[in-house]
């Protein structure tokens, strides 16, 4: 424990020192360039198109947010960003609060997350808190529903969230700066900045973000009762991510990404709790090095080496609870790939070694995940085929082979049909295995089959319709439960959870002389049912899984006129089952208005515009109407050749 405390202290010092050091290097690098290049005085500062449109709106199982959307949107973290985007259920009750994600009703922990291709979900719980990732740190965020354990490995059951830092600099050589400032209700303030420099063989990008809020919103539980104010709900987050890319030659590059962060978050009292003074401190360092080389035969060899150090401290002085958790991960991946005409193949091996300590492990625990994987894609005139395959060894245990076969057929210009078959698995986390009491070293990994059929119909250029039906059978479902005559909960394998659903989306775009309209709608139906009985927790066969809404829907309209833009979205979620009382269905509206003036974009956002009283987490209430004002500056400057 003392070691952990010292480590956290050291991490904070390390964080400050590293920030200073890298900034110093960066500034010297940038200043050094000034001597050798002159600014192109004839070059106008370039502006991006005026829009608040998000591409993550509907229609297909894959959604992506571009760098521009991430910068301009009013969402500060990935958890907020994913809210209201299709079959994604984000379990979060306050902006900046802990946010876990469930895709297609598979449950939290049953989706993978990658950062530049490396798995990011923790090995202890198998979860990732998406509120800890500021959107300004990434250049690209994507959600791929349906999962592909062949490509993404363990836990890719409901889908995959991809976070990427990528060289998105459109100028050959130059300087780019963007900033995001937001202030709003409940003491919310965010300041983030991104600097990129592209010169010669070097590309540098520095991202800094500060995000904080008091979240001291008032809420009314019943009209005849006095209003209450949310207390002990503040958070503060400071992030730094540095990328350095060195192109040694046209065929070889070396990338280094250094990401460190400190996060303080208070835990407010529940609705049935008078007082809370609990708080969580998180800090981490993530270091990633990627070497890519293309050989004469056209084969690319890509090697990734990463180190992740995560510390988490939960402190609840009122209840005398202190929990300190640390984990360290070494990750290495080596991959060969080649594009041949209309096909692409890759073959690789990866290894993730994790050590973790917590007071509830009898001693420090380790886990080693060795993976061999392959991927193949073939594009024909009317057909697209992909196949993925993966074999994992978890410590000394061989896991089932997983993979995915997918095909798409372009029936005609208007209609495309797709189908896929997916074999997936999920390794038990360290907590499932070693938490004391209750950890079960004899757990077997979850595994199962999934199938999906899709249809995309575009009768005219402006209209887009898609429909997807899917089903997934998750065997050996890992569940914590109280066994008969036991005094504590323990992790057990249970036979089956069956998930099936339908996703439909329809959008229509109207282009006029000076303005454009975009109308979109989407609906998701998901039935995820336990196919077993358990007394504690009380589960009956055929019941919907916890926190899995059966129905979700989004409808919205976007309008752009010259420099003005506006967007309104209404989203709906049906009632969900929780561990206590069920939560009512709810529907909220969001309005965003933007104006571009030269290189600055101004925005006004109103979340929960109708001041709906709703809950996403049991015994927690979400805030009512809230406003935020934003200002984004984006400057691109080419260097004179």
């Amino acid at each position, binding site marked *: 424990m003392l070691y952990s405390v010292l480590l956290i202290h050291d991490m904070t010092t390390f964080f400050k020192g590293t920030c200073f050091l890298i900034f110093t290097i960066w500034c010297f690098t940038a200043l050094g360039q000034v001597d050798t290049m002159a600014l192109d005085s004839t070059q106008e500062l370039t502006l991006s198109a005026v829009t608040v449109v998000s591409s993550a709106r509907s229609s297909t199982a894959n959604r992506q947010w571009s760098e521009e959307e991430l910068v301009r949107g009013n969402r500060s973290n990935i958890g907020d960003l994913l809210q209201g985007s299709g079959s994604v259920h984000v379990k979060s009750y306050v902006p900046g609060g802990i946010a876990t994600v469930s895709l297609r009703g598979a449950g939290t922990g049953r989706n993978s997350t990658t950062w530049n291709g490396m798995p990011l979900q923790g090995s202890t719980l198998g979860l990732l808190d998406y509120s800890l990732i500021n959107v300004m740190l990434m250049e690209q965020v994507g959600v791929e529903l349906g999962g592909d354990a062949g490509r993404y490995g363990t836990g890719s059951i409901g889908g995959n969230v991809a976070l990427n830092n990528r060289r998105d600099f459109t100028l050959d050589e130059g300087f780019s700066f963007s900033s995001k400032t937001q202030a709003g209700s409940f003491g919310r303030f965010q300041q983030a900045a991104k600097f990129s420099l592209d010169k010669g063989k070097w590309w540098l990008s520095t991202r800094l973000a500060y995000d904080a809020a008091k979240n001291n919103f008032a809420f009314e539980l*019943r009209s005849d009762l006095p209003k209450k104010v949310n207390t002990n709900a503040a958070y503060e987050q400071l992030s730094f991510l540095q990328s350095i890319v060195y192109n040694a030659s046209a065929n070889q590059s070396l990338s280094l990404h250094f990401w460190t962060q400190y996060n303080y978050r208070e835990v407010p009292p529940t609705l049935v709790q008078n007082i809370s003074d609990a708080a969580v401190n998180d800090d981490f360092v993530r270091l990633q090095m990627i070497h890519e080389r293309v050989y004469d035969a056209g084969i690319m060899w890509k090697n990734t080496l990463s180190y992740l150090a995560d510390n988490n401290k939960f402190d609840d002085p009122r209840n005398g609870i202190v929990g300190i958790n640390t984990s360290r991960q070494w990750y290495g991946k080596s991959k060969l790939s080649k594009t041949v005409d209309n096909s692409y193949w890759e073959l690789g091996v990866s290894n993730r070694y994790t050590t973790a300590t917590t007071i*509830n492990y009898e001693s420090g625990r380790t886990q080693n995940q060795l993976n061999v994987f392959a991927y193949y894609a073939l594009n024909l005139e009317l057909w697209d085929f992909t196949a993925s395959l993966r074999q994992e060894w978890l410590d000394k245990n061989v896991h089932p082979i997983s993979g995915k076969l997918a095909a798409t057929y372009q029936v005609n210009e208007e209609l495309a049909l797709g189908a896929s078959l997916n074999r997936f698995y999920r390794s038990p986390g360290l907590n499932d295995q070693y938490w004391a009491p209750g950890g079960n070293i004899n757990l077997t990994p979850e595994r199962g089959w999934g199938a999906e059929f899709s249809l995309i119909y575009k009768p005219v250029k402006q209209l887009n319709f898609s429909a997807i039906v899917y089903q997934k059978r998750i065997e050996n479902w890992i569940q914590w439960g109280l066994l008969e005559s036991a005094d504590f909960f323990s992790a057990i394998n249970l036979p089956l959870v069956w998930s099936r659903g339908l996703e439909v989306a329809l959008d229509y775009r109207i282009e006029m002389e000076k303005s454009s309209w975009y109308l979109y709608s989407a609906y998701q139906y998901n039935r995820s049912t336990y196919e077993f009985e358990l007394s504690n927790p009380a589960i009956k066969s055929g019941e919907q899984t916890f926190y899995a809404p059966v129905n979700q829907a989004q409808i919205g309209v976007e309008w752009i006129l010259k420099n003005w833009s506006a967007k309104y979205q209404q989203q709906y979620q049906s009632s969900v089952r929780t*561990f206590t009382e069920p939560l009512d269905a709810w529907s909220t509206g969001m309005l965003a208005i933007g104006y571009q003036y030269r290189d600055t974009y101004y925005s006004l956002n109103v979340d929960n515009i109708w001041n709906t009283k709703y809950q996403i987490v049991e015994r927690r209430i979400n805030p009512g109407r809230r406003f935020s004002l934003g200002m984004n500056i984006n400057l691109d400057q080419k260097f004179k050749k």
Partner: protein
Amino acid sequence: MKTIFTLTISILLGTILCGQTIADFENFGLAPGENINEDTSGDGFRVLDLALQNEYNANYDSWSGWAISADTDTTTPGFGNQYSAMAGAGFENSTTYAVSYAFGENIIGVVDGAGVDETTVLGMYVTNNAYAYYSMLDGDAYAKKFGGITGEDPDFYSIIFKKYLDGVLSTDSVEFFLADFRAANSDEDYILKDWTWVDLSSLGLLDSLSIVMNSSDVGSFGINTPLYFCVDNITVENTSVSSTEIKALEVDIFPNLVSENLTISLVAGAKTEVKLVSLNGEIVFTQSFFGGRGEVNLSELTSGMYILNVSQDGKIMSTKIIKQ
């Protein structure tokens, strides 16, 4: 009126005049602030002819079943104060008491001592544990404050006592409410923090006592309220030579249904102490007198059921009376 007992009227109004032994836990020799959460014998904490089960995990210093405690902290909420009774000490300011914590059933067994393996447990004093008390009062991250969001939820936290005899669990039970917010008038809501007598004589002869907690705050993972409570002065029929015998006090009390004056008549003439305790544990009346006969005026008392304790020369008698 809160329904607390399932006894018949005749039992309610009867006096217990047989020989009794009291397990007061003072034999563990704890000083105030100390506690024991591990039974090193493996047979359970032994007090007289009773055995209180204990499961202990040395790796995490965690336990379940029973612990023995002399903790006195009545102000600190949370798990860290799991060994304290809200009364701040044992019954009648004694040092030591027992703490119960179990997910499911907790057991007090009658051990095979002095040829005895079954007895009648006449009753015991119980109160809330500090962790559970403050959880019910203020709520915590897992459990609700009683009364809920509006203060109107009909919450309760109770102990259900049953008996095992020859391995068979009885259907009869005694339920005692450590907290009760079910009354129509919320002024009557209470969370117990004083030692209160629970009469278990109706269970009769037993070879072990089954204790299961019940609460209105239940989720899919079971009861959310911390499953703790405290026990002292477990009183059983005198059966063993190893027991500290408490002689029954021969006393006549009349009338049984009292509206104004209650007469207490004793043979001996030493100082007699009379204490009247409400069902939520509050001492509502105390009086002492010398001589063989005393009269207590209860006309100011609210109608309802009370526990009358009469003690004289180390002998005690407890019974219930009904104020009309």
